């Protein structure tokens, strides 16, 4: 068991036959059921008046984030296990960068939009 193959410095994955990072049939099926449920809820919320109209975007965002969580846990097998610490840290960093890019772009562009002269006024000044 301690034999190292010459090809790789790390031990080969002989013992990963137990399906370590690749989950189980029930895991995938539960994940699919959750995903279908959340997708259906998203369509329902956006197409009907079940939710107070100004709250619909927030509701859709919550459902989307929940579904992404379901995909991460049940399909990509991101968990809190000891093998997964690095994956979770990388994910946290990725989420930070994505949040900075999206919220920063929206903030800056909204600010520019509010402070910029209308296009017609700029044309007037250049005349």
């Amino acid at each position, binding site marked *: 068991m301690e034999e190292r193959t010459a090809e790789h410095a*790390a031990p080969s*994955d002989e013992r*990963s036959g137990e399906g370590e990072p690749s989950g189980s049939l029930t895991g*995938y099926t539960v994940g699919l059921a959750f995903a279908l449920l959340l997708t259906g809820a998203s369509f329902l919320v*956006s197409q009907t008046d079940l939710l107070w109209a100004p709250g619909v975007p927030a509701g859709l965002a919550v459902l989307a984030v929940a579904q*992404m969580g379901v995909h991460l846990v049940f399909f990509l097998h991101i968990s809190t296990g000891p093998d997964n610490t690095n*994956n979770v840290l990388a994910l946290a960093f990725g989420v930070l960068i994505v949040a900075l890019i999206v919220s920063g772009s*929206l903030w800056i562009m909204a600010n520019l939009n509010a402070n910029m002269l209308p296009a017609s006024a700029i044309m007037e000044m250049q005349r």
Partner: protein
Amino acid sequence: MSAAAGTAQLPGLGSTLASGSEGPAPVRIVVAYGFWIFLLSDIIMFSALFASYAVLSGQTAGGPSGRTLFELRHVGIETLCLLFSSYTCGLGLLAIERRRLRDFYIAFAFTFVLGATFLGLELSEFTGLVARGAGPSRSAFLSAFFSLVGLHGAHVTAGLSWLIFLVAQTAARGPRDFVRRRLLCFSLFWHALDIIWVALLTLVYLMGAR
């Protein structure tokens, strides 16, 4: 063996200590970690396009808006195709881990067909939009729409060609360690595309069609 006996005496911390005292992590874990970092960088690239879409989605330049263009029934079928192809991809991975080659081929055939159906539906939507005069050059909103949704479609196309390549490799080389590691990376890629589609569906289609 003595090292294993030593860690067995520490209940609770056992698994953490064992993974530290056994030397480097298995290749499979390292490969999956590296590929996960690539996927995160891909998601960051998508986030830039999401941001530009969110900024430009109102700038229709007098042209059609999402409310008149998007057909949610069509989009719903696309979503189901992608979701079920993700599921069958996971089943295929389970089958190859248990060396059940026939189940693996069936599951990946379903994955391919569902992915190709998704791509066909998306292409028909794109050609329909261009035919109605709502191509990418019509307005800033449509430029952002086509680049964001088109980039996702390009990823699905790349994934489908990768899938064909990997199935051919499995047929030629058998379910060896390196083949199964590549299949694991493919499944991570395919599931990540599904995550991006969830964001896309919500921001572009469900919020845009209201």
